[in-house]
């Protein structure tokens, strides 16, 4: 039972991390109709910046904060130089251009930081178990990820639902053209939204860096999952992104933890051994395919989409 | 009494709280030009969409030449002989006018799982296409790329595409939309000619044209059919006058 709780917490943590990426992705897609493959690269930059800057400053927290700022700057630079010219164009153009950005950033990182993965050591106060329930210990580090992610989700909610900018964002998600017609500085809004997305991606990268290390190509793996999340959740819908990321986070974690045993029971150990590795990885895609076929616009599509 | 070619029975469609069609019933006789008119928002577009197969009605039935086509997809209705033109021009902009119409012909001449022979060399496709273009007066623009043609010429191609497959029934959705007075007059003449060979359902806002051309008129208001009859009957109908004179953008019904 305790192990199950631990797995659920792991799933929650993974799901929240996915949410950070998916929220930015779905905002950018929903508001600017932009398919951004380079989102994973921003996640990667966050991790690399965190590794360097925390080593430089000697403090994980300071390094993390600086890394976040740096990633935000990189994101804004990308928006101004490349993304601006892509608005209104075919999605395929977006895919191609941002694919080019992926190649660029993967190589840039190799150039600046070398091909070896960078590790980010955890300070003692994070690198220990915390007793959250009597007798139940959970990693302080993972706990902090959950807390930070939830706090960020709350901030995002407040931003989108309770501020004027948030209102513009919500309006833009349902009717892009109207925004311009209403005299809103759409350009600035787009840059802002992209910046928010970049910061979220960077934050996810910063927080993941200690576990996964920072390595080239780390963005691509998680990017696909983030896309699966927003497709399942409904493009343009942050609520959908939250629901779907938690769902996928839990499904993936629990699936990997328990599916092998379940399948071994059902199919016998030999058959299960061949099927299991593939199925655990494929589970997420199978879920997406099913959702898309039943609800082509996702589970919680943004109104007006 | 001849059998109606198109029979619409109790057609109803809601979108959330909006009633786009409420129990619409009327029939179109073979060879007639049947106009459907009504103020903006009356549900004319929804009606055409349901007739064409782009929208499925919530309830009701549509019969064409005796067959129940209510749930048939658009492509199947087209092959059965119902051709449709669009109110907002919907063509293949990067192809030539001839290619546009030839595609429409291709849909009705045999199947298209032919992988080798050059379709542009098939006279079975090109000849009827040229004929359709000539019919609408665009023979001289056959090889022009559609994107470079004028709006009026686009409307002509819309019609040519509808004619290309030798249909039994033409559903024309505001063929004169956006046309200037000269082009409108030409379109009216063309429709007069087509009247003699085809059965037509015409949706139009131009009242002069409607009353000149139509054999019978059905009037839709707020999704409901409030009157069906010959132009004289419609002109005199008190409900119709109220519906139009009660609206701000009333296009006056000519007297007498």
């Amino acid at each position, binding site marked *: 039972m305790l192990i199950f709780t631990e797995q659920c917490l792991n799933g929650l943590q993974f799901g929240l991390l996915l949410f950070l990426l998916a929220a930015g992705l779905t905002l950018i897609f929903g508001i600017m109709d932009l398919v951004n493959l380079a989102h994973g690269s921003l996640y990667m930059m966050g991790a690399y910046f965190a590794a360097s800057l925390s080593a430089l400053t000697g403090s994980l927290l300071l390094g993390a904060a600086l890394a976040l700022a740096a990633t935000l700057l990189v994101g804004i630079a990308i928006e101004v130089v490349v993304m601006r010219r892509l608005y209104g164009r075919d999605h395929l153009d977006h895919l191609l251009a941002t694919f080019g950005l992926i190649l660029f950033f993967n190589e840039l990182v190799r150039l600046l930081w070398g091909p070896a993965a960078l590790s980010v050591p955890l300070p003692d106060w994070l690198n220990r178990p915390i007793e959250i329930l009597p007798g139940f210990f959970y990693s302080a580090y993972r706990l902090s990820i959950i807390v930070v992610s939830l706090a960020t989700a709350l901030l995002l909610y407040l931003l989108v639902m309770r501020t004027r900018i948030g209102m513009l964002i919500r309006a833009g998600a349902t009717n892009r053209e109207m925004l311009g017609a209403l005299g809103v500085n759409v350009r600035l809004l787009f840059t802002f939204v992209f910046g928010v997305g970049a910061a979220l991606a960077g934050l996810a990268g910063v927080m993941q860096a200690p576990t996964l290390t920072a390595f080239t190509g780390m963005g691509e793996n998680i990017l696909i999952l983030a896309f699966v999340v927003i497709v399942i959740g409904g493009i343009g819908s942050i609520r959908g992104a939250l629901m779907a990321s938690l769902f996928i986070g839990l499904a993936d974690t629990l699936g990997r933890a328990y599916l092998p045993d379940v399948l071994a029971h059902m199919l016998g150990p030999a058959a299960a051994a061949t099927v299991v590795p593939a199925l655990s990885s494929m589970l997420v895609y199978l879920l*997406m395919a099913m959702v898309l076929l039943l609800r082509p616009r996702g589970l919680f599509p943004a109104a007006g989409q | 009494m001849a059998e109606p070619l198109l029979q619409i029975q109790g057609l109803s469609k809601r979108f959330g709280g909006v009633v786009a069609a409420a129990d619409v019933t009327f029939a179109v006789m073979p060879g007639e030009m049947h106009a459907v008119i009504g103020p903006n928002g009356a549900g004319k577009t929804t009606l055409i969409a349901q007739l064409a197969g782009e929208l499925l009605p919530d309830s009701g039935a549509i019969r064409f030449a005796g067959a129940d086509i209510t749930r048939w997809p658009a492509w199947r209705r087209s092959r059965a002989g119902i051709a449709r033109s669009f109110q907002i021009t919907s063509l293949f902009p990067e192809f030539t006018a001839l290619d546009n119409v030839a595609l429409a012909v291709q849909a009705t001449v045999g199947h298209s799982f032919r992988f080798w022979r050059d379709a542009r060399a098939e006279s079975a496709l090109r000849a009827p296409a040229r004929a359709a273009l000539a019919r609408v007066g665009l023979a001289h623009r056959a090889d022009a790329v559609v994107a470079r043609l004028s709006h009026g010429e686009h409307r002509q191609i819309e019609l040519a595409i509808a004619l290309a497959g030798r249909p039994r029934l033409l559903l024309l959705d505001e063929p004169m939309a956006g046309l200037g007075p000269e082009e409108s007059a030409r379109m009216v003449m063309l429709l007069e000619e087509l009247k003699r060979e085809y059965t037509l359902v015409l949706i139009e806002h131009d009242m002069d044209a409607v009353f000149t051309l139509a054999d019978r008129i059905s009037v839709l208001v707020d999704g409901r059919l409030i009157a069906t009859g010959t132009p004289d009957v419609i002109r005199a109908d008190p409900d119709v006058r109220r519906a139009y004179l009660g609206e701000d953008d009333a296009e006056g019904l000519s007297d007498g």
Partner: protein
Amino acid sequence: MKLRPLSLGNAVAAALIAFLLLLPIYCGFAGDVFLLTLFTRILILALAATSLNLIMGFGGMPSFGHAAFLGIGGYAVGILAAEGIVSGFVQWPVAVGVSALFAFVAGALALRTRGVHFIMITLAFGQMAYYVASSLAGYGGDDGLTIDRRSQFGGGLDLSNRAGFYYLCLALLLGGVYLVHRLVNSRFGWVLRGARSNERRMRSIGFPTYRYRLTCFVIAGAMCGLAGVLLANFSEFISPAAMYWTRSGDLIVMVVLGGMGSALGPVMGAVALLVLEEMLSGVTEHWQIILGPLLVAVVLYARGGIAGILETFERG
């Protein structure tokens, strides 16, 4: 997308084909094995790109899972070879058949969606193929599968002869390009191109577009499966990495670089991309840092690719 007819009068096309035909002869004289090997690989990937051009360039169906067929074709050969079946007469039809089947299933589901959702489902199918291949513990799993013997055809066809294999690949590539050219101008091709231009209108005039698109998808899958067969024979190795979604991205790059909607475009794109890669990696090991922005520039400013640029020159 305007179709430019495959007119061999086009100087570049003719020059390119002549070059490809004469290359092995030059390599024979110069003793340059490397160049021959490089261009064999280019030809194989060009065939894969040609199949992608069919669905993407002409059919308007951008698939981010197309590399899966390379893997499927390759693994069919590899697995059969591992089981002792080395006859090409068995391996190749099986490979193409399985690819076609996978294309049928994936396409049947994916083609119910549009736009970005379509791209995502094709991506998902590609990844699923990747994961299945990774889990084939008996056939190398993640490390991949070595193929000891190339497909055997007995009699005159010896695939281990470099020049012979090159010419086989070239023949199949030119055959594929010509097939695409004929397909695109046939009735079938017009349905595809019309569906790409204005699907709503196509359905309205009487075309059940879904079945045509699916057929196209299957043809493309089969053709790419054949490319996978060649790839496996060429490298004498096949691994799941060949199917990772970024490899599908590479194929898309080739098609766009060469010019979508041009029958020879993918060949030009494959040549351009892979030669560029070779040249750049000679300059710096960080060549992708140049390729990335180059790709962005092509998308922003030369969207029609090489074929588009040529056309601009032609029109003067």
